[in-house]
């Protein structure tokens, strides 16, 4: 067990987020708990609409104004609750302590500002040590070098860069102020495989070099396997399974949803004639099923699943939220240890 208090960087407790649209209310995140230690990488996987991005945006309090709203929960970062923090304090956290890399590099850079201006801005905003202009500019060059962009191209505009390079600029911006935590929201989904490999390799390298923690949001289990230390599987705004990377990839016991996810991807190593995906679709987030949210699609669904919210069963570092596993299993496991 490595959840010693001094090592804990971020802890999310019972977070609930809703989106209010003019016709109905979307329950995007329904009480999730997450914890992340220093220098750890947490992977969040899940289908479209599971609430991954919402969780990430909640941490930075960047939910769309007037629509997204955190209704409950705490986000404790370095011992302070971010949800009750003042907006001006949040601004200091953003970019300086926690920064975020968004999914689409094509649109996350401002088309009318040069790469240098955008990178410089990030530094200038958090210039706590009152560095001079030339120092900041030197830092811009350094950051570009770090992500592998020749500094003579810094006066160019985003559209003159390829997708991979843009994503690297976005990464450079995110890392400019050496934050403690980087949240990467599907950073490579929009990129080609070869470029994706480049970017991921670079991110992991930088993360280790700079000693940061990272939350990596993705729906590619391959990426998770390659980069993460901990994994959380999200489904319909809830975390259905979480644990260390080994727990998810090598343990015997799994939430049926996780099983389905693995069954859905064609495996390069094992020959399969047919895939064994999960049937059905994600539930409507405005009208979630009662009890276990997954039960309508679950091949092992029992009567109780539609009646009662499943308990969280813990096997050491491995948590599963499912009726199929009982408290007894949990205690047996403990005893065995």
């Amino acid at each position, binding site marked *: 067990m490595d959840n010693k208090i001094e090592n804990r960087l971020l802890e999310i407790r019972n977070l609930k987020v809703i989106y209010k*649209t*003019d*016709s*109905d209310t979307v329950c995007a995140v329904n009480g999730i708990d997450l914890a992340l230690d220093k220098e750890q990488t947490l992977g969040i996987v899940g289908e479209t609409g599971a609430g991954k991005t919402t969780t990430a945006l909640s941490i930075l309090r960047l939910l769309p104004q007037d629509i997204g709203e955190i209704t409950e929960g705490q986000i404790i970062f370095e011992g302070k609750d971010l949800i009750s923090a003042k907006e001006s304090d949040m601004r200091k956290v953003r970019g300086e302590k926690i920064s975020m890399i968004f999914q689409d590099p094509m649109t996350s850079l401002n088309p009318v500002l040069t790469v240098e201006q955008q990178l410089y801005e990030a530094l200038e905003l958090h210039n706590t040590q009152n560095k001079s202009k030339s120092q900041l500019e030197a830092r811009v060059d350094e950051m570009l070098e770090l992500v592998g962009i020749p500094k003579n191209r810094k006066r160019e505009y985003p559209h003159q860069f390829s997708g991979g390079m843009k994503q690297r600029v976005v990464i450079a911006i995110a890392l400019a102020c050496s934050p403690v935590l980087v949240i990467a929201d599907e950073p490579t989904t929009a990129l080609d495989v070869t470029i994706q490999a480049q970017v991921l390799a670079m991110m992991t390298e930088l993360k280790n070099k700079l000693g940061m923690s990272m939350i990596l949001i993705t729906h590619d289990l391959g990426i998770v396997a390659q980069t993460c230390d901990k994994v959380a599987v999200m489904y319909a705004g809830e975390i259905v399974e979480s644990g260390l990377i080994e727990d998810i990839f090598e343990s015997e016991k799994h939430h049926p949803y996780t099983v389905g996810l693995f069954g859905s991807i064609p495996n390069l190593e094992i020959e399969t004639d047919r895939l064994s995906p999960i049937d059905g679709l994600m539930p409507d987030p405005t009208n979630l099923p009662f009890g276990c949210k997954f039960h309508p699609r679950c091949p092992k669904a029992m009567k109780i699943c539609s009646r009662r919210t499943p308990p969280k069963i813990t096997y050491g570092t491995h948590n599963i939220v499912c009726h199929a596993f009982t408290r007894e299993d949990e205690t047996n496991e403990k005893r065995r240890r």
Partner: protein
Amino acid sequence: MTQEANAVAIEKKYAKKSQIKEIWRRMKKNKLAMIGLAIFCILVAMSLSADLIADYQESAIKQNGSLRLQPPSWEHYFGTDQYGRDLLARMVHGSRVSLSIGFFTTGISLLIGGILGAMTGYYGGIFDEIVMRLMDILLSIPSILLAIAIVSAMGPSLLNLLIAITISQIPGFTRIVRSTVLTVVGEDYIEAARACGSKDFRIITNDVLPNAIGPIIVQGTMSVAKMILLAAGLSFIGLGIQPPQPEWGYMLSEAREYMRDYPYLVVIPGIAIAISVFSINLIGDGLRDALDPRLKN
């Protein structure tokens, strides 16, 4: 027979959700648009029932020397004009002309511009090039001047005014339709239709136009308002409406001399124009928002 019944049954069971209903639902939420629609309905009702409100021959046309330039009173709610005609009657009857000018010119120019725009946008190539150059030429003459020149050439009359305004609006519509069609033509479902072997005409009418129609309708609505203003402007400088037919712009133009001492003569038709344009603009805005897919949820 049973199959027939079956098909009908299925259709009934899973009745189409009308998209118009959907748009209407969204539009209903927009208070301003509903206000606009209400005002507009009142205006239309007013112009339809003009004959009930005041007799055309007796009140709107007939001159009466003893009633010249009477200020608003209980007998004449809006007063009388320089010929002693009742202003309310003229305004109500004028609404018929003004509103129908707006709709008629927009309708025809939208039709012609729509056909041209859809063809040029869909086919592209040399045809597009030629038509668009032609439209460029027409566009480089200010539309109001073009209208004035055409009316001068053909002689002022309501019909010629309509023709002139229509012609002067065609290039604008062609452009708008063309650009919306261009965005639609780039979509995959057009390619899909082609892959099915649909003919061009069918693709244009079944796939391209229904998808381009939203922005075009919005433009059209806004254009009705613009046309009412343009027609009023042209009547104001004495082109178009022939006396003693009442039309708002023309009423303004006639009233202009009397403006200093009888301001109600210009205020009333002006407000009539402004209100109708205002309501149509509100509807147009509302429609645009209702049709905007990004606001869908």
